[in-house]
């Protein structure tokens, strides 16, 4: 397996409470990996270690390593803003920035000074809005406030905004849970289209979504990784009793 992220001996504590217990996994490149498990099992915590978002919560402690392309992102010489540029995040609820639709897409490119002139920024904005499937809906209202969009459109805007900083990895923290079914389906099909170019890691609490999206599956329970493997194997022939119970709907 061509691993894009490798997690080695990862332990996370919130104060005295241990949230992740000795996690060792590998996340394959250019596939969709789904992390599933009952609520409170540490799915989101694990996801937050991949873009160093865990350190935004006070009182968290972390031991072990998270390697992206072989480099531990918790090394002292690592620039956290570079980590987050390479590892993008699609949050649970879309959070449009207090500016126009156009400026939202450009925000990341601007702070990282990724383009040379206005022309290039404009073209890039269009490009990423097209990829996110939003261009047709917003091309005549690019300078409206981003909050004037529907919540489903806002999530696609957040996707475009995230892709615009040219990440290699996309994290999704239950990215469709706040959306209506049609918008959810829209986001899901974007993610499937994009998986050729990006390594995608999605946290989900719905088994059906895990089955629709997952190429590779991680099942967690009470802070531990119980089982990880290609989706077909895990879904058809789970090795562990707990995974089987979850898949059969007992947990």
């Amino acid at each position: 397996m061509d691993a894009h992220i490798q997690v080695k001996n990862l332990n996370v504590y919130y104060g005295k409470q241990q949230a992740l217990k000795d996690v060792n996994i590998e996340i394959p490149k250019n596939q969709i990996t789904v992390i599933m498990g009952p609520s409170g099992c540490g799915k989101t915590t694990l996801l937050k270690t991949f873009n160093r978002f865990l350190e935004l919560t006070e009182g968290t402690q972390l031991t072990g390593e998270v390697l992206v392309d072989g480099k531990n992102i918790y090394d002292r010489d690592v620039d956290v803003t570079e980590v987050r540029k390479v590892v993008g995040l699609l949050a649970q609820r879309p959070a449009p920035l207090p500016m126009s639709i156009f400026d939202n897409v450009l925000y990341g490119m601007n702070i990282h000074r990724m383009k040379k002139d206005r022309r290039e920024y404009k073209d890039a904005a269009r490009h990423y809005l097209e990829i996110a499937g939003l261009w047709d809906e917003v091309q005549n209202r690019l300078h409206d406030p981003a909050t004037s969009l529907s919540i489903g459109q806002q999530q696609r805007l957040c996707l475009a905004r995230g892709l615009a900083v040219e990440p290699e990895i996309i994290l999704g923290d239950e990215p469709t849970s706040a959306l209506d079914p049609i918008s959810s389906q829209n986001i899901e099909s974007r993610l499937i289209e994009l998986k050729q170019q990006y390594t995608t890691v999605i946290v989900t609490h719905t088994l059906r979504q895990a089955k629709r999206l997952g190429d590779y599956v991680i099942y967690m329970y009470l802070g531990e990784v119980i089982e990880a493997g290609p989706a077909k194997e895990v879904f058809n022939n789970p090795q562990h009793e707990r995974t089987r119970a979850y898949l059969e709907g007992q947990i």
Partner: protein
Amino acid sequence: MGFLTKKRWQRRHLVETFMKFIMRVSLFIVAGSLGLILWIVVVRGLPSLSWEMVSQIPKGGYYMGKGGGILNAIIGSLYLAAGGTLLAMIFSVPIAIYLKTYLGDSKWGQYVRLSLDVLWGIPSIVYGAFGFALMISLGMRASLLAGIIILAFIELPIMTRAMDEVIRRMPEDLEHAALALGSTKFEVALRIVTRQMLPGITTAILLGFGRGIGDAASVLFTAGYTDRIPTSLMRPTASLPLAVFFQLSSPYPEVRERGYAAALILTVIVLVVSFSSRWLSARLNKYTVK
């Protein structure tokens, strides 16, 4: 039937009626006092308000009821308050952002907030005396600059704490969204927090301006009073609160009436600044996330 009808004489309904009555009385007293203040200022000030009053400086014998106006105090107050507000802003915006971005609710953050609150509570005459002592030791005379500096001292704690309270209500989602794209904390503060919180920041600045333009005690020692319009930062300057004070304490009735006119002018300036900045911040509000 009857079980749905209100049992008016039940204790909890009586309490409700009584409490509502108390709240209404409080509101009436406060709103009534405000109305009364405005009414007195308008009724007593309007008759002696004239074009001459707002367009000319005092002529000889003005303080005995002869011609001229208080343009010196109007211009002086605008200079003082605008200068003080600008100077206070230069310091309070970075402090407020630093408090939110790097100190947060830490021990040091709480110390800074406590000291700002203490500074807020110091009476302005003490600031005036402090400024006066400082000026004497530096060999400075009463001047526009000294007045501006002291007003900045007075406005700074109000402005900073008001901004701090506003900025602390910043939605965490927005900050996280910007951080997730690889922003530094400073970029979040500069590009996201200031934008989202602009209406609140405007209100904070306005609070400072309001306190600055209305303060008499601090400028008494530091800016002095003169019948001329200041032409340099080193010259003394008149101010509206002191113009009100001097004229109201005059033995001549027509001069006392002019004191009310000066008070009216001061009130109008504060109202105009207040309404126009509200209008402005409503327009800037377009992109904020509710």
